[in-house]
Structure formats: C-alpha cells, structure tokens
C-alpha cells in the first residue's frame, strides 16, 4: 500500500463545486474535497453544516444539483440509472450513525446477505469471510446473536464489518459514535483506527476531535455548506488560520458534541395496529 506522502496521483475521491438544496434550504454551497487512496480524511464542523450530506452524495444516496463528484473512474454526478449507482455502491462502504443493521437477521446473516445477493458469492465463501471480519472487529462470539441483543458499540462494530464484507475500496463513516454510550465509543474508534493503519481509505464525519486529530491525514472544516479550511491535523487543530475554525474548536474541544438520538428505538411498536374490529 503506497503511503499518502509519496504518491501524488489522481485522488480516489474528488468533489468540485458540489451544490445541493432541500427545498429552499441550501445545504451544500460549493464543496471541494479530495481524498487520496489510502488516506484517512475527517470532516468536522457544527451540526447541520452539511457534513453527512457530503457522504451521502459520494455514494449516490443523494443526487447533486451542480458540480462534479468522481470516485475512482466513476463520475457520480453523471450516473443516470439505479443500476449504475448500485455498481458504485459495491465499491463504497457506508457506516451509519444509527448502525442500521437489519433487525430480523442474525449478526452473521447481516454480514453475509449483501455479498451473497449482490456480489453473488457462494454461501461458504461469504460465511468464511464474514467470520474473519467478525474476528477483526472482535465480535466473533456474537455471530448468532441478533442486533437487538447487542449494545450500541457492538452493533456499530458489526455495521463496520458489514460494510467491509463487500470488500469496498473506501469506507464512509457518518458520525458513527454520536449515538453511542460514552463507554462504548472507544471500542468502535479502535476498530476504525486499525482500518486506517491498514491503509483503508476512510472518510469520517465526526465530532470526536481528539480522534480526528489523531488518525487523520487531512481534516476539512465545514460550516454552512462550505469548506472553511482544510489541511493537516496539526494545521487545523494547532494553528487554525480561519477565525470560524478557531471559534468552533474552542467550543467543540470541550465536549464530544454528542447529541441525543431523536426518536430512540426506531423499531418500537406502539401504535401500529389500528383497532381492527368489524361487523
């Protein structure tokens, strides 16, 4: 794996002047961003500054309005059909804030289903690979458990393994520790750190400033849908030049920016069955 310093080739991901609005709400107002192969890139910034939106645009979950997004040789902004986007997503892993494991499948089945159905791997191969990945995230003892039986940190590690099961070229991490209990944050960060050390290309949206400083090759600071400043972690965290970055970091380094999860358990069934009586 070539180290990021020596190789100055074409970046693996490159965003140029990306715009996106939801209705009248302009979320991205011209994002430029480059990720070299093997780099770990962090995107930091206040809530609602469009960080997660950038990740969703990269993997084609959200369409862009203007500008270009390139991942490897694929022009994401020009993808027309769902089939083309599916081809892209085979190469790009995504880990969500809310883990989003499939609650009706066991841990092992969560890892096996996409390689089998999407990539067409054989059951034996997919399962062998899945067990290796579970060992890697130290969850091999929970292979037959169901997501609902695991802690948040455990679910998130399984979610990372699920993304890895597709053998992606890069992984996008969307605030993966924001919904976790403080005591389980560490176990998830350790897994991500190991991935970056192995040379996996990672893009992280995070509120864990210390962690971002520690593992990143490049840090981007976004605010109001714009990249305010980017550079090496030392530059951003020790000698930020922009006044906004300085203000944000002064406040953000105090706490990890964890915010409460909006709706709690999305599978809580309270009011689904309407009174079904009839005559």
């Amino acid at each position, binding site marked *: 794996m070539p180290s990021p310093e020596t190789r100055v080739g074409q970046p693996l991901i490159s965003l140029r002047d990306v715009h996106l609005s939801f209705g009248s709400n302009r979320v991205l107002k011209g994002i430029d961003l480059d990720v070299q192969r093997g780099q770990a890139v962090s995107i930091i910034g206040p809530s609602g500054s469009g960080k997660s939106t950038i990740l969703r645009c990269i993997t084609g979950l959200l369409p862009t309005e203007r500008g270009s997004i390139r991942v490897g040789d694929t022009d994401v902004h020009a993808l027309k059909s769902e089939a083309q986007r599916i081809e892209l997503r085979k190469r790009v892993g995504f880990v969500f804030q809310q883990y989003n494991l499939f609650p009706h499948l066991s841990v092992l089945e969560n890892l096996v*289903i996409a390689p089998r159905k999407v990539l067409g791997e054989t059951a034996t191969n997919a399962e062998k690979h899945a067990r290796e990945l579970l060992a890697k995230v130290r969850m091999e003892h929970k292979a037959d458990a169901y997501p609902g039986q695991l802690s948040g940190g455990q679910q998130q590690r399984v979610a990372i393994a699920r993304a890895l099961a597709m053998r992606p070229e890069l992984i996008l991490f969307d605030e993966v520790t924001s919904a976790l209990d403080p005591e389980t944050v560490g176990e998830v960060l350790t897994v991500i750190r190991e991935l970056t050390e192995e040379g996996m290309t990672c893009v992280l949206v995070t509120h864990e400033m210390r962690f971002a400083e520690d593992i990143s090759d490049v840090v981007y600071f976004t605010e109001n849908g714009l990249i305010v400043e980017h550079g090496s972690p030392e530059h951003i965290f020790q000698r930020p030049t922009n006044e906004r970055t300085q203000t944000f970091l002064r406040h953000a380094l105090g706490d990890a920016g964890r915010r409460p999860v909006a709706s709690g358990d999305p599978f809580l069934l309270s009011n*689904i069955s309407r009174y079904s009586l009839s005559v």
Partner: protein
Amino acid sequence: MTDLLELFVQAAAKFGLNYGFLLDAYQRGSLVNGAITTIALCAFTIVGSLLAGLALAAMLTSGRPWFARPARVFIEVTRNTPTLVQLYCAFLVLNMLLTQAVGAANPLTPFAWVVIVISLHKGAFHAEALRAGIEAVPRVTLEAASSLAFSRRQLLWNVQLPLAMRFALPSLINNLIDLVKMTAVASAIAVGDITYASIMIWTQSDNVLELMILLLAFFGLLSFVVNCVGRALEAKLRMPGYGH
C-alpha cells in the same frame, strides 16, 4: 363415543341443561355438518382474505394514483359499511343480476358468495395492516440496504417485506380472529354453517340456551386455534431484542 356423549348429556342434565338432541343422529349430523361447513368457510376466507389484502396493499403502496386511489376508496367503503349489507348487495343484487344474465349456469353458490364477501371485507383490513407495516420500516434501514448496493427488488424482498410482515403480524392475527367470528353471518343467506344448523334445531325443539353455549364454545375454540397458530408464527419470526 356414544357412551361419552350419553355421559355428557346426563351430566349436563344435572345443571338443568337439556342436551338430549345430541343423541339424536339426525340433529347431531346436521350440527357436525354445520361445524365442518364453518371450518371450511374459515379456511377459504383466511386464504382469500390474505390474498386480497396483499393485492390491495400492493396497490396502496404502489405510488401510482391509478392503483392507490381505487384501493383506498374500496377500503374505506368496506370498513364503513356492515358486512351483512355487503353480503346482501353481493348475494341478493349481484347474484340476481348474474342469474338473470347467465340463467342456471351461474356457478356461484351462497357459500362462494360468503367466501368472496368476507375475503374482500377482511382483505381491506389486512391491507391497512400491511400498508402500516410497510410504512413502519425505518427509512434509515432502507438507506443502509441501498448503501450495500441492493437493487430495488432485492431491497423489497430481503429487507422491506420481511420487516413489514413482522410489524403487521399482530394486526393480521387480530383480523383473522375477527374473521372467524364473522363467518356466523353466513347463516343470513342460508349457508348451512353451524349457526344456521343451530337455528334449525332450536326452532324445532326450543333449547336455545344449550345450543348457544355449544356455539360459543365452538367459536371460542376456533378463535383459540387461530390465535395459537398466530402466536407461534409471531414467536418464530420474533426479532430478538425487539420484544413487544
């Protein structure tokens, strides 16, 4: 068998209940036939209602107004009118028109009409439950499946429907228990179900209370069986950690 029956009749007599008609082969036979008819009616309508419900739910969630609108109108009309009136509209009106059109070749018996009407009626309720189940699948879970490069069809069959099914199951089982009770309405158009058989017996021998207890026990048993099968299915499909 007959000995057991006699013992039961004697025991009931001590409580002042006259179950003597059970010893009469003809009356017992008509009751047993009625019970079999009711069970057949339940079996046909359970399958029919689930099929109708699936079709209506597919129309509702198709996102195409040309499918969703008629399904919505049908469901609202069905939910807000009595089954008996629906049965009359089908059997006394549509069946009459059909007979006028094709004469004696009309293939639909009263039994078939009851199956059709109750299937469609309960299908409307199933469709609502299924639609709610489909809509209850969190958007983020679908997004996760998309990020794993699932196609729309793979997403539907591997994630959306299995989850929707689990969310809808408690409502579906309630609907089916209600359906079992509803089959009693078949007696209104002289389908020989157990209610009709009982009416025929009590108009002759004035033992309403005894037959009534028998009827309630029979429907209680049927509901119980449906309930047990439903709970077993729910337990089998339960997602550990998401108890309710």
